[in-house]
């Protein structure tokens, strides 16, 4: 078992667990962007974007690249790993949200059923 790989994946995973950070990563995964360009596409301030990018960089998901005078963030790993991470993390995030929502609906319906019985 490659413990370092598991730990690295867990870090990436935690970094993508935040919805805003996932959005930032989704944008970067499509094309390299500067902090300002990311901020322009999200309802998030530049300092907040910088903070998210630092977390993503620490997790090994994005890296900083200087092109001329521009500082661009791009996916850290090659396209293959990025795609795999993307699909996998997408379903993790989506299913976590699904679970919370399904449980919320189940609680609401159970409460409504109780109320109906009580008012009878």
């Amino acid at each position, binding site marked *: 078992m490659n413990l370092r790989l598991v730990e690295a994946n867990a870090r990436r995973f935690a970094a993508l667990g935040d919805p805003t950070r996932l959005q930032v990563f989704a944008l970067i995964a499509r094309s390299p962007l500067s902090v300002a360009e990311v901020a322009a596409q999200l309802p998030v301030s530049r300092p907040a974007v910088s903070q998210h990018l630092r977390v993503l960089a620490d997790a090994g998901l994005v890296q900083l690249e200087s092109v001329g005078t521009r500082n661009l963030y791009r996916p850290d790993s090659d396209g293959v790993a990025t795609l795999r991470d993307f699909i996998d993390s997408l*379903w993790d995030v989506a299913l976590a949200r699904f679970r919370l929502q399904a449980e919320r609906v189940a609680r609401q319906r159970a409460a409504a059923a109780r109320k109906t019985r009580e008012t009878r």
Partner: protein
Amino acid sequence: MSPSPQPAAAPVVRKTVIVAAPLAVAFEVFTAQIESWWPMASHHIGEAACAAVVIEPRAGGRWYERGVDGVECVWGRVLVWEAPRRVVLVWQLSAQFRFDPALHTEVDVRFSAVDARTTRVELEHRGLEAFGADAMAMRDTFDSPNGWNGMLEHFAQVAGRPRAHAPGG
């Protein structure tokens, strides 16, 4: 000469999640209410913000998003509709989240009752080799159960509600 064999282990993403909801509710929320949980803000393909995600409830139905501008963008279609136990969706979005009619990957979702109030949801996203030759290079990582289990457990902690299924645990 026999045709070249299918890859022994094509890249697949498998996920299991245990949900504290009855079977029918879990299925309904997953399909009819997909827009209530799909991370639409970050995962949609239209130019405009996403207003709705729709899975038409029948085999052959469309799976699409509708932007706030009213424009519909197809993600794929319904291959199998066996409410409330199974739905198979054809996912035709590329890695860049663009519709690609030539791309055919399948999202197979099975729902089974653990008890009257609890449902096991097993999701398999298969056919990832359709993403191209690159996908085959991913196989080693996909085949690393320790890696995925570790990530699943970690996610359960991150999500703060450790109900994600941990085999044998």
